[in-house]
């Protein structure tokens, strides 16, 4: 699987799903994201890489307006989803977040049962008409989150009682259960063992058939394995954005090269 993953990229350009132009983010006086332009394509996995604190999570959170919940955070510039400005006052952030799902950097299961955790999104969006349908959605989501076999006998157990890695997969299952069009994943595998990581990567690959996935990762190998596009952030700037193969084999910017070869970070 890892022989020469960089050669297998299909370079066909796809429809742009999310597009950011001149995006700036401030936390009070801190300038966290500086003038970022990026196009995230449909049916593509885009990886955000960069040293810790460079603003990957911040930018990711702009894409579904999660930054609205932080009082001191201010976003400038335009970000469009399917050509529509998501920061337009007409846009309902609640609807937006149903379409652009998110898996957070730290696992945050609700203090509810495993079943209720996964069923929460489908329930509030009225995705199931019967209990049987809901059961089906939950099972499918847990299977995609590579958690089903471990929890199928204890769906009523509290989600907070799982191990850290299981909790993270529960959060992934919870996010995919609502069938978002775009899935934002902030370091989804940082707490997972190699087997679960491989399962999640398989899931990402599967999701790519229908959706657009953005993944933040600190693992160069992972970015190379799962993504078609890679964006390298450094100190709030988008230094380089392009085909994953090109970024990893032939980076244009010296900072990118230093980072992927391990000299910044």
């Amino acid at each position: 699987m890892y022989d020469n993953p960089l050669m297998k990229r299909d370079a066909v350009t796809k429809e742009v799903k999310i597009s950011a132009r001149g995006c700036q983010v401030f936390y009070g006086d801190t300038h966290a994201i500086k003038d970022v332009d990026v196009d995230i394509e449909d049916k593509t996995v885009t990886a955000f890489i960069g040293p810790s604190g460079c603003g990957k999570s911040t930018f990711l959170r702009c894409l579904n307006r999660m930054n609205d919940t932080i009082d001191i955070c201010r976003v400038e510039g335009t970000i469009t989803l399917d050509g529509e400005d998501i920061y337009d006052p007409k846009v309902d952030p609640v609807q937006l977040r149903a379409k652009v799902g998110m898996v957070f950097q730290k696992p945050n299961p609700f203090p509810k049962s495993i079943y209720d955790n996964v069923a929460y999104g489908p329930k509030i969006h009225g995705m199931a008409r019967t209990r049987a349908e809901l059961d089906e959605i939950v099972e499918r989501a847990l299977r995609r989150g590579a958690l089903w076999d471990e929890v199928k006998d204890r769906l009523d157990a509290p989600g907070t009682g799982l191990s850290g890695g299981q909790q993270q997969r529960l959060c992934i299952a919870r996010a995919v259960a609502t069938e978002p069009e775009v899935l934002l994943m902030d370091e989804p595998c940082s707490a997972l063992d190699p087997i679960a990581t491989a399962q999640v990567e398989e899931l990402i690959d599967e999701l790519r058939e229908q959706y657009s996935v953005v993944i933040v990762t600190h693992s160069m190998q992972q970015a190379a394995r799962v993504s078609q596009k890679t964006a390298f952030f450094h100190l709030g700037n988008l230094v380089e954005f392009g085909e994953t193969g090109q970024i990893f084999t032939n980076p244009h910017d010296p900072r990118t090269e230093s980072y992927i070869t391990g000299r910044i970070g």
Partner: protein
Amino acid sequence: MSVGILIAIVLGLAIAGFFLGRRRAIAKAGGDSRRLHSLPGYYGQSVALFASVPALILMAAWLFVQPILIDDKVAELIPDSAIADGGSRGLVLSDVRRIADGIDLLVVQDLLNEADLQNMRADFTNVRSRLGEVGVALGANVSPSVFEAAKAYRDAQRTGATLMSVFVLALAAAMFAFSLLRIKPDLRARNISESFVLSLLIGSSLVAILTTVGIVGSLVFETIHFFQMYPASEFFFSTTWNPQFRGGSELGILPLLWGTLYVSFVALVASVPIGLMIAIYLSEYASKTLRSLAKPAIEVLAGIPTIVYGLFALITVGPFIRDWIAEPTGLGSSSSSVLTAGLVMGIMLIPFVSSLSDDIINAVPQSMRDGAYGLGATRSETIRQVILPAALPGVVGAILLAASRAIGETMIVVLGAGAAARLGLNPFEAMTTVTVKIVSQLTGDTEFASPETLVAFALGLTLFVFTLGLNVLALYIVRKYREQYE
């Protein structure tokens, strides 16, 4: 020797012990304190502690046990004939104590000397008038046997006090000598002081626990007394509360309990929804500045003395409810009513519920909110389905705290709901609660050993069991919830 002087001597010994102990330690180490196991001060401390603490503990124990023993002995001296009709040995015994105290006063003021006292007989001297000279008033003439008992009581007390001084001083001196003499450079004085600190900490916790046990014990004791005089079934199941000064009282708790529960219920119905909504608004919607202004403003409500709330109920709310609601609808004509007291108490409880719940809701981690928002939940969905369930144990705790406040509240009820014990459903009528009746039974003129007074303890115990039950229930709810979710 009086207790104060005794304590002063023991403490003086301790201070002297400190300096002597320190000096001796340094001297034993040949003036080089580095050769000591511990710093010199610790050696001084160990002498001071050994000299004072055991002696003081012995004294405290003595002071506690001596009166019990003396009472027992003197009570035997009182013949049955000296006990008046309807009285008890306890009453005579308290007379004995007063006479003994009076004699002490006479002796102190040089109106009587010990030799005369030995010869003094109640048959020949008017003890009552002699005691009257020093301001000790007695209800009746003193019978010879009581007077002899008083003399015996006084003697026993004096002997006890002397013995106590001797033993306490002997113990202090012995421990002083022992701890001073054992000082040598490799004595682990630091560890001695460490274990002393440990026992001090344990002792303090024991004081708190024993106090609770003592309070409950005295309640139980007096309650048993009460039930020996008054049938328990009447107390628990009679629906009339009608205490009389001279016997024949009906002391049913039901109307009082009903009043307590009714008023508390009204208070909770008024305060819990408002308090919770305030908490949700403050923690989830209000801006930081608004929150920092509004929260203290609401907490001011908790700082108002309950008597002021009572006045507010009496002067404003009561008449308002009577004039605008009760009388026009023909439901009642009294300005004190369950509704008045309940509403005013509800206002008092709002900050309890809101402030605690606000803190608890705020303590729910932001990541929970993020998780729900990230799935496309609205604010109120997030609050109802994620935040409140996560905060539930704490919120239940806040509500139960408010409930026990309501059940124990007295002032607002006296002024707002009146003092009439009644079993009824009409919230516009005056009713009263357990706490109000505890106060009125204990402040009355009836003698202490009568059921009319002792009923207060039975009421208090019932209330205690009630609030205890409430707390257990709260724990159970919280535990159950935890099992399900965490």
